[in-house]
């Protein structure tokens, strides 16, 4: 059970992340908006509640690991990392500028707090499997978290990793699918994901990926599963939180007009949270 104050504070963090994503896209800067907004609640839950991390010591050996396999949604992660102090907030203004520590996709060598360089879809789950296996080999009790896209799950490599994690009983790995049902150019073609993961030997739970209580419960439940990896299939809405962006593939990768930018911020501000 989670206290109302915990839920409320995490919901505010999610709003802060959404607001931060929009602010990064000020002045017509392009970004992967839809998929960043759909993971904002999950990112808030992981970074501000679930994961054992220390922003002052990003290379702490016993930290939990997080891999954003759907690397294009990194704007959400950047806001969370800045909020936690992995790097100064000022850096958010420089996203994608030449020489910036914040690249268009996650870069572990440039950005404190990024654990794996991703962006070529399908690879992050395998990398996360390696981190989870590494913990077992080295007798470490850290946990590895990985967010996979449902569009990304069309990649064959995802299912190679699914077989591997199941065979080697990686019960220290929590997979999270951002099931927003849209790819860049329309509906996903991957079909029902929960039955697929179960068929591959994973424990699964399907939840509302925008309901903080459900997210926290599911993340806790994952810790209790033994001998199997866990996939939390999170039903989400691409573009969640901004009316005209929701479920609209035009905003998969986009620039906002000044008008859209103002409207987006207004909508988020109306929802409350720290401004």
């Amino acid at each position: 059970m989670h206290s109302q104050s915990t839920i409320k504070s995490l919901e505010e963090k999610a709003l802060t992340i959404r607001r931060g994503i929009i602010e990064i896209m000020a002045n017509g800067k392009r970004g992967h908006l839809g998929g960043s907004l759909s993971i904002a609640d999950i990112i808030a839950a992981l970074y501000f509640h679930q994961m054992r991390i220390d922003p002052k010591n990003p290379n702490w050996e016993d930290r939990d690991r997080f891999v954003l396999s759907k690397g294009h949604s990194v704007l959400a992660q950047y806001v969370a990392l800045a909020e936690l102090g992995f790097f100064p907030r000022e850096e958010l203004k420089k996203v994608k500028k030449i020489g910036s520590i914040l690249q268009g996709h996650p870069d572990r060598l440039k950005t404190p707090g990024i654990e794996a360089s991703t962006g070529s879809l399908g690879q992050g789950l395998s990398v996360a499997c390696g981190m989870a296996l590494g913990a077992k080999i080295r007798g470490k009790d850290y946990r590895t978290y990985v967010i996979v896209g449902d569009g990304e799950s069309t990649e064959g490599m995802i299912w190679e990793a699914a077989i591997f994690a199941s065979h080697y009983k990686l019960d220290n790995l929590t997979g999270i699918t951002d099931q927003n049902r849209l790819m860049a150019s329309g509906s996903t073609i991957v079909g029902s994901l929960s039955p697929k993961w179960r068929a591959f030997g994973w424990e699964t739970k399907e939840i509302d990926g925008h309901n903080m209580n459900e997210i926290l419960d599911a993340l806790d439940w994952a810790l209790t599963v033994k001998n199997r990896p866990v996939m939390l299939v999170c039903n989400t809405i691409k573009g969640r939180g901004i009316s005209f962006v929701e479920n609209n593939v035009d905003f998969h990768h986009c620039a906002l007009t000044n008008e859209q930018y103002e409207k987006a911020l207004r909508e988020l501000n109306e929802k409350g949270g720290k401004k």
Partner: protein
Amino acid sequence: MQKMEDMRDAYGEALAQVGEDPRVVVLDADLSHSNKTDIFKKKHPERFFDVGIAEANMVGVAAGLSLTGLIPFIHTFSVFAVGRVYDQIRISVCYQKANVKIVGTSAGLSDAHDGATHQSVDDVTIARVLPNMTVIVPCDGIEVRKAVRAIYEHFGPVYLRIDRMPVPFVWESMENCQFKIGKASILREGSDVTIIASGCTVHLAVKAADQISKIGIKAEVLDIHTIKPIDEEAIVKAAKKTGAIITAEEHSVIGALGGAVAEVLGERYPAPLERIGIKDKFGESALDWDDLLKAHNITAEAIVDAAKRVLKRK
């Protein structure tokens, strides 16, 4: 009869030795018997993982392991080790400088029976073009042993390419083989022509040098085991000294040893060059590896002929 050793046997032994370090983890894609990783597996079963026939995942898992401070060595045939998983190596290994050792066996034409689908003619070229990658092609069992120790000590992505058949020893002993990543070894001194070879063609280069010495041509022989970073200074020095260069490799001449040497000569010290290797072709089945090498004109005789040609162009 020359003393010979299958490079894979040397590899398996050497891997088990560096595997005494608990950070070394070995992954194989269902070829542990052929790749001789089963020697390591027997000694350290807790650090050996068969990923099944899933090379892409093997690369990703290795990258993840390396990011936790472990030193993964991953294995499959050369023909699958790079080309099949090029993007996984590009992003998950090279781009993020993951300390992964990629070992491709049954290289070049050495899996003669299995034909073109199992013969790697392009792996060195595509590995070499990747930023942060080191590419090593040893010439015999002794050099394999040295290379395994060196890549284990070197931090960063490495592609190591070894054959599957017995090859004659080029080096007499571990003590006399001076192996350093990125540094060519001079096997024969000579002043008329330089033969630069890698992998199983090195012993052919030595044989060719011996043959042409009989007709009064003094050939220098360089063993360039490290295709990247290539030893530019050794190549320029050779070009200045002999003014005529031959490269020999069990690989396409496009972009690998022959290509790399051509780049160095072109930019730094132009000299006539003849390249022995596979001429923009796939392989094919043969019952005998030697027959296949002959069919592709990768022989000591071909090197001798190339020497005669290149000398005329001086």
